[in-house]
């Protein structure tokens, strides 16, 4: 009756090991999805962009309006990412380190930009700062243009990317705890030194990851920016807006050329993220091992 004893009982097969067929099916599904929804579209974008030749491609992206869109997008990211980082670190610090009334409310408030549609976020700024609003009217009368101008685009992008770094850092800071900071203080370090030499190095990978995600979102944001931009050619068109505009003008090659550039920027960002995370894996493991020990203790 030996054949009745399942093979697993011999201890050769780990409990979590699936059969070859199951593995093939799972892998197949993942790869098919990856191909259909990621690889084919990206290839299509590049193919379309280069359809009329490399010269046409470079002509399309060196068009003054395209160039201004690229510059505006880079400017927006360059302003939004550092601000997002500063806010994210400050908010995560406050939430992870201190107990105060309204803390849960703050956590909820931080998430609002993720919860509402970007278009609504954009409209919010138009309602608040548009020429017909009291604040907007006052600003316009003093010669400050925010809506349908570059500041509006930056504001809207700031708003939609608001939670990214904070969300990334809150769990990390909470998990790390404040003991190392306390140790630094007892050893005589002042607040600023403690922050620079202890807090920041401990969260730097999380913060960089947040910055990378924020950058991707800042460059790719369409909805909110579209509402506040006013679509002034060569002035308030970011890359996504420009792509849509030339696409609607049936200039497919130009649209795809800029789109491919935007895709490239996104890919660079993601590759950067990949390397950051690969580098930080040691730090992540070290971080993860600590709470386990605490439980064991």
């Amino acid at each position, binding site marked *: 009756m030996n054949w009745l004893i399942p093979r697993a009982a011999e201890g050769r097969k780990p409990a979590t090991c699936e059969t070859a067929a199951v593995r093939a099916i799972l892998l197949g599904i993942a790869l098919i999805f990856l191909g259909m929804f990621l690889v084919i579209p990206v290839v299509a974008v590049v193919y379309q962009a280069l359809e009329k030749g490399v010269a046409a491609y470079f002509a399309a992206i060196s068009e003054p309006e395209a160039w201004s869109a690229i510059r505006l997008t880079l400017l927006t990211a360059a302003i939004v990412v550092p601000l997002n980082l500063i806010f994210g670190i400050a908010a995560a610090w406050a939430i992870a380190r201190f107990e105060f009334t309204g803390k849960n409310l703050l956590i909820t408030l931080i998430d609002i930009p993720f919860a509402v549609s970007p278009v609504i976020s954009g409209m919010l700024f138009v309602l608040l700062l548009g020429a017909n609003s009291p604040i907007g009217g006052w600003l316009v009368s003093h010669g400050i243009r925010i809506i349908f101008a570059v500041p509006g685009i930056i504001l809207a992008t700031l708003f939609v990317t608001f939670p990214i770094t904070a969300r990334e850092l809150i769990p990390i800071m909470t998990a790390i705890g404040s003991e190392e900071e*306390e140790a*630094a*203080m*007892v*050893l005589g*370090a002042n607040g600023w030194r403690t922050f620079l030499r202890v807090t920041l190095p401990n969260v730097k990978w999380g913060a960089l990851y947040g910055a990378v995600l924020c950058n991707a979102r800042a460059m790719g944001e369409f909805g909110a920016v579209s509402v506040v931009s006013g679509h002034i050619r060569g002035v308030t068109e970011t890359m996504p807006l420009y792509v849509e505009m030339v696409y609607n003008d049936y200039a497919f090659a130009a649209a795809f050329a800029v789109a491919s550039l935007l895709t490239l920027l996104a890919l660079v960002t993601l590759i950067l993220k990949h390397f950051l995370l690969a580098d930080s894996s*040691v730090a992540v493991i070290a971080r993860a091992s600590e709470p386990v*020990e605490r439980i064991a*203790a």
Partner: protein
Amino acid sequence: MSIEIRNVRKTFGDFVALEDVSLEIATGELVALLGLSGSGKTTLLRIIAGLEIPDRGTIHFHGEDASGRSARERKVGFVFQHYALFRHMTVFENVAFGLRVRPRKDRPNEPEIEARVHDLLKLVQVDFLASRYPSQLSGGQRQRVALARTLAVEPKVLLLDEPFGALDAKVRQELRRWLKRLHEELRITSVFVTHDQEEALELANRVVVMNAGHIEQVGTAEEVYHHPANAFVYNFLGNVNLFHGRVENGKVYLGDTAVEVQDTHERAHLNGNKALVYVRPHLLDIEPKRPEGNHCFPATVTNINPAGPQVKVELVAKWGDMVQVELDHERYRKLGLAEGAEVFLRPREKKVFVYQI
């Protein structure tokens, strides 16, 4: 440097962590704060360090009120329970941290820092680990590095929060002896928190037994162990059997056996109805037959564990309470005990502790 804690009270929300605690610690002493978790011992330690601010009361260092000083200004050494080593710095940089963050005019130069760090790492016997990261160290090594880092700033007071709590028994023993030697060498006023009574009794010059936010007793190991101030201290320091007894005519009865109670001052007011009686397992003797004098009670052996320096015998008293007795092996062999045997238990000394309820 001496430490004086005056009438300190600390609450966290509704929870009273410390209630009017006062304590004096002399220069060069090694004092243990001993208590269960939640007894307020760690809070007291953190208040001394300035990591926690008391609701009321003051902390004095060397007779000077230090309550207003921040943790940074108090210049105490604090060793955290989980070491709190800087995980992104090497062992060397961890130990050098306290020197590097000094204001420029007090900061030693690089060769001085290097010499000092290596001296300290040699002192704690982990010099060979200087270039490692904390995650690559064992628990005992981390503890030594944490101590070296603390000593680097030459603190006048050393505070240790459960210094051996997260280590396994063998390493703990070793580090304990080592810390005692280190203290004898450096003579820094030291306070450590522990929930391990054995650790407190072995290491400390004086033991502070804490319970529910206040101090139950302060004394040498000898004093708190042999002359406990109250039932809590007696119960907390070592194993005890707890019996629910009756009080009649100034005598304490367990079942229908009168127990001799002589050396406790609480005897004077033995006139209520019920009493809790505490007896240590090694202070009970097992007799095969009812001895003279009647100060014993019958019980049945339920379990015998002869592994270890003493034989642990579990019994059930006639009235149903579980009883633990510890015998030496010689006595155990002489008695020839077996499970199920009917025997008589006699408190060997008069160190029976009675607590009126």
